[in-house]
């Protein structure tokens, strides 16, 4: 008889990766493309290709950034926007996860709430802004509401999908060992739907960031969107770009962060 250890094919162990020392071709090409763009942008107004008043220049934007971070009450505005974002997002998470779980585990609940939920998800919640302002005033509240509305649906829908699309083979396996309903929920459905939940959160980030900014653009007394509006009216392209970059960097970083957690959790699915 052959020995068991020999017959078991050795799986590959994870190796430590030093790949970051050797930038990939795509990274090199990407960096070059960005550099080329910056150079073109810098020289284009001087060459008379574009009107510098409308395009600004990388150097001007850079100087504007320094000025903004020093003298523009930047932290004050950032804190307002961040507060709206965090409050709305936290509220969305608190509401959406239980709702998603309910919808994912109860067919009746799903039949009942799924269609209006879908409609709300697809409809741009930003169109509700004027109403929200009438209801909630021009302070932080309507922006928090917009963030909430933007973030809540992707999380609900993805949590729901993660729960209801659980592998029936795993459910049957669990039942065969006498798993209770609660066991199946906590040991199979919840861990199984974690990647989908994180996907929902990642999609929600983008919508929530958009909600804050557009909310503030629409009507506000402070915040990043307020500043954007201010410099837009003053035609200060350089400053506008600085704020726009701040917003993108924030959304981008958060998205990357969630995605890295997501990939870790999803690790087992790939390969």
């Amino acid at each position, binding site marked *: *008889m*052959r*020995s*068991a*250890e020999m*017959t*078991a*094919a050795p*799986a*590959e162990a994870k190796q430590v990766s030093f790949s970051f020392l050797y930038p990939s071709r795509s990274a090199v090409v990407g960096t070059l493309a960005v550099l080329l763009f910056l150079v073109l942008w810098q020289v284009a107004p001087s060459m008379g290709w574009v009107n510098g008043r409308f395009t600004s220049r990388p150097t001007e934007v850079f100087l504007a950034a320094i000025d903004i971070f020093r003298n523009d009450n930047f932290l004050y505005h950032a804190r307002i926007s961040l507060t709206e974002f965090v409050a709305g997002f936290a509220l969305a998470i608190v509401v959406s996860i239980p709702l998603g779980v309910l919808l994912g585990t109860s067919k009746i609940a799903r039949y009942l709430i799924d269609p209006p939920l879908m409609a709300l998800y697809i409809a741009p919640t930003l169109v509700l802004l004027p109403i929200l302002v009438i209801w909630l005033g021009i302070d932080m509240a309507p922006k928090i509401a917009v963030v909430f509305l933007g973030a809540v649906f992707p999380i609900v829908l993805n949590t729901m999908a993660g729960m209801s699309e659980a*592998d029936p*083979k*795993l459910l*049957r*396996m*669990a*039942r*065969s*060992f*006498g*798993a209770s309903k609660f*066991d199946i929920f906590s*040991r*199979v459905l919840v*861990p*199984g739907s*974690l990647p989908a939940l994180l996907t929902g959160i990642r999609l929600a980030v983008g919508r929530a960031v958009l909600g804050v900014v557009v909310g503030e653009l629409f009507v506000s007394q402070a915040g990043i969107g307020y500043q954007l509006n201010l410099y837009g009216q003053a035609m200060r392209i350089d400053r506008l770009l600085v704020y726009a970059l701040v917003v993108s960097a924030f959304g981008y970083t958060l998205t990357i962060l969630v995605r890295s957690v997501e990939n870790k*959790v999803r*690790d*087992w*699915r*790939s*390969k």
Partner: protein
Amino acid sequence: MAQIEIRDLGIDYRKPKSDEVFSAVDGVALSVEKGEFVTIVGSSGCGKSTLLMAVAGLVALSRGSIRIDGKDVTGPGPDRAVVFQEASLLPWRSVRGNVKFGLEMQRWSGGNLDEQAMQMIRLVGLGRFSDYQPHQLSGGMRQRVNIARALAVDPEVLLMDEPFGALDAQTREIMGTELLRIWERDKKTALFVTHDIDEAIFLADKIVVMGRNPGHIKEVIKVDLPRPRDEEVLDSEDFHNLRKRLRAHLAEDMSSMQLVQEVA
């Protein structure tokens, strides 16, 4: 009295989107003695899995009864454990975590869960891989985990549904030998579904041959090949004779299937 008593068993499935029912298994009677290794063969779709899942308590009976140690089967129970066709491992749990799963579900109180799990993992030859995740394992290794998980809860009856069906011929043969080695230790009652004739003979004390439309038992064949067995038994004359007999059965099934297709 036999350990498993199946009487007059019938299982109907409702056809999707209609009220029509379709009989997957009908008029099945079978008894299995304690410690017997019974294989169930038949062409695909003849109701083998349905029969096995009914014994597991995972499929509702439409007619008849299944008794284990005199008790009616009404659902899953700690006296039985299933090794599924697909490994059905929780992808977020390690090998050890998966083997512990059944123990956790049954609120096992026979000692340290980790120790019990590790013992089974070593038994199936995966000692060095206990911290691996399922996606890092080959198909054969996953089925070893699947088997270890079932053995860990120390069931009276082991139910296996084509556990090696998806493996290549070579691995399959190795796994068969391995399974017998493990089974020899405490000779648990085993029901093993397969559509592979050699596998059915190699493992069995008794072969149940099933036919289709609806799934029924055509013949029960005793296998008297000496134990413990290894691959050499495959070349014996008794083995050849059994193989011939089973082939004839399955060929008959195939031709009746073609007939049905031609009529349809």
